[in-house]
């Protein structure tokens, strides 16, 4: 028994943090909000992350991946959350690359090299991230994964979400083919886990940016961070985060080792990570006051990412219901 990250994981996280500090300052996130901005997958940021090997975390080393497991995925995506990295991270890392690895030929190599963009969505969503740049579409349901190629689908209108650095497009049609032997439930678990991991990173960063701000901002002759109300808001946010983080890593471990409760654990992770991040967003905004309410302040990039992730890969209510069914009905989880 040991709940700590390994020294390899800590090193991997450090390396990613170093790259992101340089390659993903808030200005880069903000640039993706421009409706005329080119897709993030064409940017230098994406190039840097590709070179780092981030996207291949779940692919085996033989095929050019990192050979990591879902705990590694969670470590890396939590760090991406801290920097609010824009783009189809979940679609690429949690679903797309592992799906491509099931396909014959050079597909996965092309995805890892950037020659080919893959995207993914839950079956029935009706939209895909990056549908206008993607060559390969993957649909996730409880059974086998289904795939289609760009020429098989019709890409429709952009879906205007609250986080404009996220590019969703309606997608219809498609000659969907099952990917033989693929495990849709596991892919869904990975995607949900990827949402949860980013949420704890977002929460972490919002708490620390607020801690910094309240020590600088003075009212009534002293830093507002000396006010008990401000202290208690932030303490409450930290308590939630520190009790969500182990839940997310537990879920990652359950998926990595295909434990029988993996689905329950992943839903639990989404619920707790969401609550923690939503609370951190509220607290951060309230402690920032009016300045946090302005678009020019970076806080809003983090907050809106949280709101955008709330319904991603299953609403919070749906995941709460999965946990309740597992706990109360002994439903398969």
């Amino acid at each position, binding site marked *: 028994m040991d709940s700590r990250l390994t020294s390899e994981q800590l090193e991997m996280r450090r390396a990613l943090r170093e790259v992101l500090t340089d390659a993903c300052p808030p200005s880069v996130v903000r640039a993706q909000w421009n409706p005329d901005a080119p897709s993030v997958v064409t940017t230098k940021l994406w190039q840097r992350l590709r070179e780092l090997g981030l996207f291949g975390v779940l692919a085996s080393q033989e095929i050019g991946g990192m050979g990591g497991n879902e705990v590694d995925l969670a470590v890396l995506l939590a760090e991406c959350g801290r920097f609010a990295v824009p783009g189809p991270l979940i679609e690429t890392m949690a679903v797309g690359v592992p799906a491509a690895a099931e396909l014959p030929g050079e597909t996965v190599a092309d995805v890892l090299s950037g020659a080919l963009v893959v995207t993914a969505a839950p079956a029935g969503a009706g939209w895909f991230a990056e549908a206008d740049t993607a060559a390969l579409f993957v649909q996730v349901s409880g059974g086998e994964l289904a795939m289609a190629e760009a020429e098989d689908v019709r890409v429709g209108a952009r879906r205007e979400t609250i986080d404009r650095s996220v590019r969703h497009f309606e997608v219809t049609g498609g000659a969907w083919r099952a990917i033989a032997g693929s495990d849709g439930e596991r892919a869904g678990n990975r995607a949900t886990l990827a949402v949860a991991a980013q949420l704890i990173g977002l929460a972490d960063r919002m708490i620390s940016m607020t801690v910094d701000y309240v020590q600088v901002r003075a*009212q009534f*002759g002293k830093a507002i961070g000396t*006010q008990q109300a401000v202290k208690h808001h932030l303490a409450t946010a930290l308590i939630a985060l520190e009790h969500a983080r182990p839940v997310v890593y537990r879920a990652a471990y359950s998926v990595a080792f295909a434990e029988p409760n993996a689905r329950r654990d992943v839903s639990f992770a989404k619920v707790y990570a969401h609550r923690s991040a939503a609370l951190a967003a509220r607290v951060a905004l*309230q402690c920032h006051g009016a300045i946090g*309410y*302005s*678009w*020019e302040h970076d806080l809003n990039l983090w907050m809106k990412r949280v*709101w955008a*992730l709330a319904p991603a890969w299953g609403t919070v209510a749906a995941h709460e219901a999965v946990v309740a069914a597992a706990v109360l009905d002994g439903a398969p989880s």
Partner: protein
Amino acid sequence: MDLTERPQDARFRREAREWLAENSPPLPLPSGDSATGVPVNLEWERQLFDGGWAVVSWPERYGGRDADLWQWLIFEEEFYAAGLPQRVAQNGISLLAPALFEFGTESQRERYLRRMASVADIWCQGWSEPEAGSDLASLRSTAVRDDAAGGWRLHGQKCWSTRGAYSSHMFGLFRTGTQQERHAGLTYFLIDLRQPGVSVHPVARLDGDDGFADVFFDGALVLDEDVLGAVGGGWQVAMATAGSERSLSLRSPGRFLASADRLVKTLQAEPGKSSDPRLRAAVADSWMAAQAYALSTNVLVSGILDGAQVGAEASLSKVFWSELDVALNETALQVLGDDADLDSPWMRGYEFSLSGPIYAGTNEIQRNIIAERLLGLPRR
């Protein structure tokens, strides 16, 4: 206790409803906080004024119809029930007008009230500064005496002025005394923004509208006739009318009753969700909160009509409406479910609601006021 609507109120309600039904512009209107939306809103608000409905509770000579507070509440209910948005004229009517009625000179009232109501002038508030949000007594912008010009020269920066980017006028507090005097050294000015020495920089809000503005002053002039109240008495004027901002005039219950009603309809329209007990309970909670706010407002109004001053009680209302607004919009996002991430009217409403616990005195400050002034707990 008599909670039954008076016959004249029922008539008034009918009349307002009919006028609004006949005269409402196509809805939804574009945002009154956006460059493209402002002209459309102004046109509608002029029509409202021309119809005699812009400021129902004001004296007729300023464009009102001498309605009492009950009828004002009724008008607000009907206004929001008709789906109409908050008005560009809002800040002037809610925040400045009460001060003009209580502290203004006859000349100030004549020069400003009617133009304010008819949106000939558009007013924004100039209170916050980069270093002074909740702590208004620490304001640093100054007004320096200019005897030759017969007035005061303004210097400094005001920020987060809602709709500042589209306003012709600002009412603001500036320091005419020393920094050490804190509250005592402030004066309340009525400022024409369309003059040299004023520059306005729009700041986009969370929801993307560029309603906020930073306003910089570098020697802009205010004549003596545009000092509201006494020189050095600005704090008293601002505080005496702050109750309005915290409760009644800024947030009449009508807006929340209409939102709750819209939320009820949103759930009813979602097949498969309208029988979900969790969503039902959350929606009923929002409905109850809006009703409770309306009922407690009635208690305040009954007191006011009986001659009571609304003091710190306004803080009870401010915390309650701002928290109910957040919860109501959060519930709506839960009802939307998979589509909660869309940039929908409810998401816009949620974003806007998050400013409620911050502006007009943060809810933390309000709770201090409640504890100290209503419950009598010691300041330190």
